[in-house]
């Protein structure tokens, strides 16, 4: 009952955060105007602001946060390390290298997205090939491979930033910090999110058993290796989808699962959907700040996820201590 209450509260907060994202902006709208344009077919400027600007961006922000938080939950089980976040496996590094490389040669947005996707896939393939040998998956080797690869990507990204013309630097930095101002349609990401939540909530008991380590999980009847492969693919797909929409938005993937654990949520059938909702709410609200606080200038959302997330997590940690 307590778990159901938590999920209900989070779902209501999610709806509330999306409503706030529709209300707040350079043109302030009233709740009546927003609801009217949402549910009663109208034309005009309010309709355009809601349907073409704010709603797509709010939905992109939400799905980004939800995917990153889900990916964080899955990776923390896979790597059995509480510090794991979606970026630890080098996937976002690969995507960033692709995206920045494309920006450097002046490619269009579509090409840049394809390059980011290619970079992420290449990083996934390298990590997979180096860590998965003859059916044995060692989380320590997986983590270490990801960390080493990330360092390599970071060096190449620094190189690109060093040689890039001044005019392109801002766009590159925004991409690296996480920015939703260029976020496109998020339909595919939403589809992926629903699929991931369905599959892994269905497998929640298996995730609970896997947190005890692979040997114990096997003794309890978990088919460990296929499950680890599924976790890796699920987490990687969620990260790629999120990074393609919003760049490297930091801190959500690690924070959302931990904040919930510190609040006493451990069973994955609750933790996973709760983390997805929490991550979504968090990024939507951070993005509202990012686009209004310095208006008309838009700031990268990643700055706000960290600025809000760090004190929240520190308070939770100190309360726990």
């Amino acid at each position: 009952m307590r778990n159901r209450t938590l999920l209900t509260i989070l779902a209501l907060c999610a709806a509330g955060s999306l409503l706030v994202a529709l209300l707040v902006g350079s043109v302030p709208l009233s709740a009546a105007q927003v609801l009217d344009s949402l549910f009663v077919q109208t034309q005009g400027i309010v309709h355009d602001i809601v349907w073409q600007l704010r709603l797509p961006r709010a939905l992109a922000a939400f799905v980004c946060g939800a995917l990153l938080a889900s990916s964080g939950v899955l990776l923390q089980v896979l790597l059995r390390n509480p510090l794991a976040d979606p970026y630890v496996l080098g996937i976002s590094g690969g995507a960033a290298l692709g995206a920045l490389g494309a920006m450097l040669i002046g490619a269009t947005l579509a090409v840049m997205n394809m390059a980011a996707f290619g970079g992420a896939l290449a990083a996934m393939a390298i990590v997979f090939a180096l860590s998965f040998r003859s059916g044995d998956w060692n989380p320590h080797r997986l983590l270490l491979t990801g960390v080493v690869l990330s360092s390599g990507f970071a060096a190449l990204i620094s190189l690109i930033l060093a040689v890039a013309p001044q005019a392109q630097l801002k766009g590159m930095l925004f991409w690296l910090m996480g920015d939703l101002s260029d976020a496109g349609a998020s339909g595919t990401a939403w589809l992926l999110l629903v699929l991931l939540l369905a599959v892994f909530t269905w497998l929640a008991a298996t995730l609970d058993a896997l947190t005890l380590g692979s040997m114990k999980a096997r003794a309890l009847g978990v088919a460990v290796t296929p499950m680890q492969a599924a976790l890796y693919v699920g987490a990687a797909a969620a990260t790629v989808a999120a990074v393609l929409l919003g760049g490297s938005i930091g801190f959500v993937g690690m924070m959302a699962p931990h904040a919930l654990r510190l609040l006493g949520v451990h069973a994955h059938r609750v933790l996973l959907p709760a983390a997805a909702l929490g991550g979504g709410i968090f990024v939507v609200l951070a993005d509202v700040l990012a686009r209004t606080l310095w208006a008309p200038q838009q700031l990268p959302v990643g700055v706000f996820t960290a600025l809000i997330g760090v004190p929240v997590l520190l308070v939770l940690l100190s309360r726990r201590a």
Partner: protein
Amino acid sequence: MLRATALGFSAGSRTLCRALDFAAAAGELWAVLGCNGSGKTTLLHALAGLARPAAGAVEFDGRAVDDYPRREFARGVGMLLQREEQEYWGTLEDYVRVGRFPHAQPPFGEDAGGEEAVARALAAFDLQSCAQQSFATLSGGERQRARLAQLWAQDARVLLLDEPLQHLDLRHQLQTMQLIRAATRAGRAAVVVLHDLTYAAHCDRVLMLHGDGGHAQGAAAEMLEPARLEALYGCRLAVCGSGSTAHVMPVI
């Protein structure tokens, strides 16, 4: 119930055990004895299907271990590991509940007798008072009892226990051995790695692993002879008392 045929395993280049035939039948309580590194844990892992032995085969109810879907096997054979790789983030009760995994049905882990089994297991190991405590804050002995309770919640027909008495105080050592004994009386089979020969004397049968490929097995009374034990452990021993009240101590 659980049968190993011509089992052989090694550690690195060292052959630990050669051509071992072993069977644990319903109602039997086995003690596995041997020095450190003699292959007791490796044997239990092979019996639990957690590691493939270098030679031989393991069957449960007449069917090869590898042929079982893992969940179905875990409903039949449960294993208490000697050590766990991982800290657990949840409460003690959550931890014990994970033992119900083989019985949980997707999509949401429905498990008809689950809560009752968890409550019974917590009560059996005196853990009700700290059931809601975070697992990370438990003492070594409480954690060991939590692991045992998790295995009890798993409700398997064969219990493989690797040093179940480690970290336990005297009362809980006795209580644990009594619970294992009660489980075998109720028709389960148990294979227990022990270092305490006083408790080994209360088992039905004893398997000795010499760590050099050699092994011996038989009824507890016949196996726990001072000469055999001295050969097994490589030290001089003194026996006080006799029969089930015998105590074996090293001569200092």
